[in-house]
């Protein structure tokens, strides 16, 4: 039965909810969709390679002393985590815009009341989520492998015999060598660096002509970014800069000002050997990464907002 319409009710609703320029709900939907799309590309298969690398390196390192093998297992694992996450950030982000344009998904999305800023932020958050899941999964794999090695070496020490006190001392030293609480800081820095690279890739892809162009540019940015600190030091040191011509100075200034300082996030080498990262140093570095990501996102929006699609 159709309910009767009151005579006082207006023929049409007079007050619609006002369209907001930026809606977290729309961004969340876009991010979830991007994450699902990337997962369907079977990106997580690289975890198998990571696991294989850990198992192989662990088998090779068995001939070394236990301090050396734990040290090297950490080096190899964190190094692989860093390179895999950086590659994932670049490759996953580089294809986002061109793929959406090719599939015409971009037009469907932007034809709805979705602003271009929401679109970009949603896409980027989807990649950030993917990177987070990757870092966490790799971290778990690494921890499992480390614990397995500790268990193996502990049982070897126990089997070797000796006094109970000496055995316990050796096991304590082994655990202290293997489990280093600073490794968490390493994981955070790997993630922040990958987010920075994803933002920079998104910016490049807003004006790039193809995916391959974006990837090549970003690989170059990665290498130059690792040398940015050296260029900055040369530019800033008066004794060195004084001898250089204006062209070299201009080049050093350009590299220092345009490229991100990726060395700031390369603290893993020292973290692995047990150097502790101070609380403020860690958060300042994370802050720098967030600042970089925001600037690259703003630049991407600046270019994308007026782009002819």
């Amino acid at each position, binding site marked *: 039965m159709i309910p009767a319409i009151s005579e006082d009710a207006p023929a049409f609703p007079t007050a619609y909810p006002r369209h907001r320029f930026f809606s977290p709900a729309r961004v969340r939907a876009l991010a979830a969709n991007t994450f699902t799309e990337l997962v369907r590309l079977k990106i997580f298969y690289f975890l198998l390679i990571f696991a294989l690398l850990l198992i192989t390196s662990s088998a*090779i390192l068995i*001939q*070394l*002393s236990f*301090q*050396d093998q734990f*040290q*090297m297992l950490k*080096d*190899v694992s964190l*190094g692989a985590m*860093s*390179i895999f996450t950086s590659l994932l950030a670049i490759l996953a982000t580089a294809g986002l815009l061109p793929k959406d344009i090719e599939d015409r998904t971009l037009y469907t999305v932007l034809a709805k009341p979705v602003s271009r800023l929401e679109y970009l932020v949603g896409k980027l958050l989807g990649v950030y989520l993917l990177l987070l899941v990757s870092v966490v999964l790799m971290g778990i794999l690494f921890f499992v492998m480390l614990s397995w090695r500790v268990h193996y070496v502990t049982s070897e020490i126990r089997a070797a015999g000796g006094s109970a006190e000496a055995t316990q001392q050796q096991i304590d030293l082994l655990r202290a060598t293997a489990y280093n609480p600073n490794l968490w800081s390493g994981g955070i820095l790997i993630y922040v660096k990958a987010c920075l690279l994803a933002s920079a890739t998104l*910016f490049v892809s807003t*004006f790039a002509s193809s995916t391959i162009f974006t990837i090549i540019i970003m690989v170059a940015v*990665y*290498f130059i970014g*690792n*040398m940015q*600190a*050296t260029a*900055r*030091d040369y530019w*800033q040191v008066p004794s060195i800069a004084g001898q250089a011509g204006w062209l070299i100075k201009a080049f050093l200034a350009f590299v*220092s*000002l*345009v490229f991100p*300082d*990726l*060395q*700031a*996030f*390369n*603290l*893993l*080498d*020292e973290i*692995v*050997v047990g*150097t502790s*990262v*101070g609380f*403020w*140093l860690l958060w*300042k*570095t994370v802050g*720098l990464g967030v*600042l*970089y990501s925001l*600037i*690259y996102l*703003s*630049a*991407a929006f*600046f*270019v994308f907002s*007026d*782009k*002819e699609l």
Partner: protein
Amino acid sequence: METTLSLPNPKPRGRIQVALATVVILIFGLVRLPLEIRLSRERQASSFGTVKLDLGLRERLSQLGFLAALSGFRTPVADVLWIEAQTAWQRVEYGRMNFLMSTVTTLTPKNVNFWDMAAWHMSYNASVAAINNTKQPKIALRSKAQREYFVLGKDYAEHGIANNPDSYLLH
């Protein structure tokens, strides 16, 4: 009367936008520069990033190894060289071993284990191998080689202490 419809020419805005975005990044670069310099000093004060990748190191590493070291993978490169040094030890090639260990300790000066092992290999294993070297008939030359390996081992220990003053292991 015939009327023609003229459409406005599309403006080449894309390039302008990219140029403006680059200017924004340059301005951001100027703002972040003092922050980065301060952060870099803080890192060095906390014993991070003390390794300088210079021409001397380039001569000792392969091109690929140097590139990897430049890209923030110093310790994995050092690990590979350390395994090579272990292989050189098994082949009784102490000269090559010294070269590799010197590169490893330059790449990872904060790793006390590498300094410790390098000092031990040179002072004990290499020096004993030198004095027992039957290919060298003159005992005086064997003794000289042994003393040189002692000095090398001592150098590793001293450099290790200088790089890791807070560690007791090398004393």
